[in-house]
């Protein structure tokens, strides 16, 4: 079984937020009004923000300034706090190392959102809405596991949702390979953010395959994790700047 992993090269990243947009279109994340967004209600499975978070993005005096940005999907932690605290097993790590969410089972207690050190989990405060014609362009894909919704189809109000490494694309790629009567290859599956990345700063693949790009990159001296000491054993890798 594969151990899917994403590597983000911060040296290459230009913080253009194309990954955020691609994620939104691929996964049908609802749009909120600017006021709601200001109140922390925006849903961005893939977020781009300045690092460090708690001080002004620009440090130093002009012209000697420096700015760092990070883009942040789910870390798909190996010791995921969200999975450990979910009372109903609505979120779980599948056998391929992806932290998944069962939208039909979630009771909306928001224990996972509180325990996630990365803030990658989002709650549907209201029923999802789209502005104008956006609603006509929803991704029609739908992933159901044992009759429970897990895929990009629109989630109901009151449940938690999160980045799934576009797991529906994995299912589709496998089905296509099976229909064509051939073996599924790991490079047939990439999440939308990786596919769209302008600077080609994102890599995706099987971390357990020693020849894959991601496992080669994981050996880089620049390879690091976000909040390495959080105890969650995050999997998504970053290649540090500089």
């Amino acid at each position, binding site marked *: 079984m594969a151990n899917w992993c994403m590597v983000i090269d911060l040296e290459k990243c230009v913080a253009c937020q194309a990954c955020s947009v691609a994620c939104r279109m691929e996964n049908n994340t609802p749009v909120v009004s600017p006021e709601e967004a200001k109140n922390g209600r925006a849903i961005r499975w893939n977020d781009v923000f300045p690092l460090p978070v708690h001080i002004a993005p620009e440090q130093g005096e002009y012209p000697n300034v420096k700015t760092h940005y990070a883009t942040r999907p789910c870390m798909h932690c190996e010791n995921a706090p969200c999975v450990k605290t*979910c009372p109903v*097993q609505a979120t779980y790590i599948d056998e391929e190392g992806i932290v998944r969410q069962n939208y039909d*089972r979630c009771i909306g207690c*928001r224990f996972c*959102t509180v325990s996630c*050190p990365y*803030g990658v989990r989002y709650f549907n405060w209201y029923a999802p809405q789209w502005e104008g014609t956006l609603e006509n362009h929803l991704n029609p894909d739908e992933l159901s596991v044992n009759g429970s919704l897990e895929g990009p189809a629109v989630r109901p109000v*009151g449940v938690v949702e999160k980045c799934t490494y576009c797991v529906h694309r994995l299912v589709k790629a496998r089905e296509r390979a099976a229909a064509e009567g051939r073996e599924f290859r790991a490079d047939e599956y990439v999440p939308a953010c990786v596919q769209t990345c302008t600077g080609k700063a994102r890599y995706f693949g099987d971390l357990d395959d020693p020849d894959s790009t991601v496992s080669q990159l994981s050996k880089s001296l620049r390879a690091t994790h976000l909040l390495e000491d959080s105890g969650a054993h995050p999997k998504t890798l970053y290649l540090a700047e500089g």
Partner: protein
Amino acid sequence: MQPILTAQDRENLVSPLFKFDRQFWMTIAVLSVITLPGLALYVRQLFLGLGVTDLNRPVFWGAYLVNFIFLIGISMAGTVISAVLHLLHIEWRRPITRIAESLTVFGLMTAGLQIIMDMGRPDRLINTILYGRLQAPLMWDIASLTLYLLTASFALYLQLIPDIAFMRDSTPENAPTWRKKLYSTLSLGWRGNKEQWTRLEKAITTVSVILIPIGVSLHTVTSWLFSTTVQPGWKSTILGPYFVVGAIYSGIGLLFIAVTFATQYNHHLKSYITDTFYKNLGWIFIVMSFVWFYFTLNETLVVTTEQETLEFPVMAAKLFGEFAPAFWGMNVLMVATTWILIALKVPNKASSNPLFKTTTGLVMTVLAVVTFIALALNIPTLHGAFVELGLLIAFIVFFVLALLGLTGWFQAHLIPSTVIASAFVLFGMWLERWNILMPTLTHARIIPYTTYFPTVTEVALTISTFGILTLIFVVFYKFFPSISIWEVEAGRALEIKNGG
């Protein structure tokens, strides 16, 4: 030998339960009026979603969770008073065991409501049974809460059986048939013979022993809800015992208020619940206040000294930041409480010194409140090294003088002073829970710092919750005596025996 329970007792304790007078209906009407807006807003929340609250990312939990811990906390009163004091054979517990036990049951019921209010999908509550993971802290809490509620209800009912039988035998002729039927069914054929008493005593002792660890477990598990998320500010091993101590502290506070409310409601009860109860439970209250300070100091000192990059911003928000008014307000209330409680224990000496006059005390109280508000509001024109320091010193001086001035009044008014101290503790403990939850939630690790203030819906639902709690209390004691009649009887019998 005279019968231990006189006709007067019957008149005092049983007759009011059959009088649905104006006072009763007025109480019900007032409580319903304050409860209904919250219920209406809850229905709105059900339809629209939790967006009607001020919750956001990362403040995913708010007023509902604060109320939940608070209500869990006040439910500790019953366990301590009834179970511990029962096992220690402490006599003065007898008249108030009933109210104490019922507060446990009612507190837990309303605490359960908070969880449902806070859920994004209350319609999926059944999933906790269908797919419940016993490894999840929330499931520990649900299991512990359910077990505690069942055991406490059972304990309450056990202790009620002889009194229900007494009610059955004392029901007035003109009482409605359904009430006669209610009492005769619920009394389970109690005849009060020796065998039944022996069995009941055994059962009550057993349940008391079981109740104590369950009570402690619930408060500890509730603290684990937070500490298992390993977020800065919650990642603490002290949280478990701190919650247990806080629970006993606020539980006793509510018990004082509930008992005083009951005696004010039915004046006859004053001959059963005497000053002795206030004095004796006051000692436990003092001990708890010191234990509480001890834990608060431990929690605050270590994190402040360490100045660790993740933990310290949370603590700084409490000490000097936006949570300072709530944090220091809580501490001021608790200091005042401890002072009042100790003042009640020292002899009252009249003094001619104007510093110890009640009027001086009242003036100083007003000044202290004004300076505290000025500090809390953080008015920009008041900034500056000396202005702020001056205000702080002024507040401390006014506060000390206020306590000194009012000491004489406190000493002369046992029950009002105890109620004031209890109200301070309840409000202070609500703030304590707020100070545990909110600074951590608003200071997430890699999400920008944010703020949270309850919306109208959350405030109305909080008011509703306390309305419902009082409503259950008032209605329950219209059907069952608020004094444990048989315990009073047993106490008197013991007195006669010991007296010769």
